[in-house]
């Protein structure tokens, strides 16, 4: 059970994982469209009252997934002794994003009043409720779970272990987070 929750990649990889991953990306984008949750970075999640077209939510997921997968694939090519496959890296990374489906569902419970972007900090503090804190913490758990899955997906698909794998993964996450955030925000500013 623990392996299926944190390292299902011992059993699922390749084209099968890519197909499942695409379904996960499409499902999370569809839910996000209705719950108004934006994945504005590889490990980012934000509720917004701004109305965006459906394809933008799908694009966010695609950018996040592509950024981290590309970085990890090239890292694997450089540092791994094994002959790694593109389909394994991209497929397992897509499956690793499945906790974000739960994060997208949690978004329905987080209420964001219209015009929140123009509010003063003191008004925002007054709006914080215990349920909002609980739901935010739940979202954080989903993000941590996703990162754990992404790490295991990387170690299996690129055959890297120990400190070397951890160091490369942390560096890749940081770079991917910066690149994906910049890309998403520039597309967002262009669209809206």
């Amino acid at each position, binding site marked *: 059970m623990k392996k299926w929750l944190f390292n299902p990649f011992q059993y699922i*990889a*390749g084209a099968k994982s890519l197909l499942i991953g695409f379904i996960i990306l499409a499902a999370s984008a569809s839910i996000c469209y209705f719950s108004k949750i934006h994945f504005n970075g590889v490990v980012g999640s934000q509720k917004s009252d701004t109305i965006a077209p459906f394809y933008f939510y799908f694009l966010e997921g695609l950018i996040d997934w592509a950024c981290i997968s590309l970085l990890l694939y090239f890292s694997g090519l450089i540092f791994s002794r*094994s*002959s790694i496959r593109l389909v394994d890296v991209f497929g397992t990374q897509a499956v690793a994003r499945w906790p974000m489906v739960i994060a997208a569902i949690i978004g329905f419970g987080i209420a964001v009043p219209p015009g929140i972007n123009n509010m003063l900090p003191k008004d925002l503090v007054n709006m914080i409720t215990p349920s909002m804190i609980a739901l935010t913490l739940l979202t954080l758990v989903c993000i941590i779970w996703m990162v754990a899955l992404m790490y295991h997906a990387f170690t*299996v698909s690129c*055959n890297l272990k120990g400190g070397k794998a951890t160091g490369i993964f942390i560096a890749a996450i940081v770079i991917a987070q910066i690149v994906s955030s910049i890309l998403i925000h520039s597309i967002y500013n262009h669209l809206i």
Partner: protein
Amino acid sequence: MQRNLPHICPSCGSGLQVKTLVCDECHTEVTGVFDLPLLASLTAREQDFIIEFVKSSGSLKIMAQQLGLSYPTVRNLLDDIILKLQPTSKK
């Protein structure tokens, strides 16, 4: 109880050699100094993996299907065995 063939000296950590071989039927003993085969340095599980790998004509895809594991997991197991079989200086 399954007994594992020792290949490392418990005293100094050097590789062990075979000194005596015995015929199971007539109990004739052959004494000398014989090197252990390279595969003897692998665990029983790793030796089973090699046998299954040969049986499946070296196809990792078939191996993955038979073991119920993903392709990269099986490839990683094989790569770990290859690394183990390499001389220490190459690791």
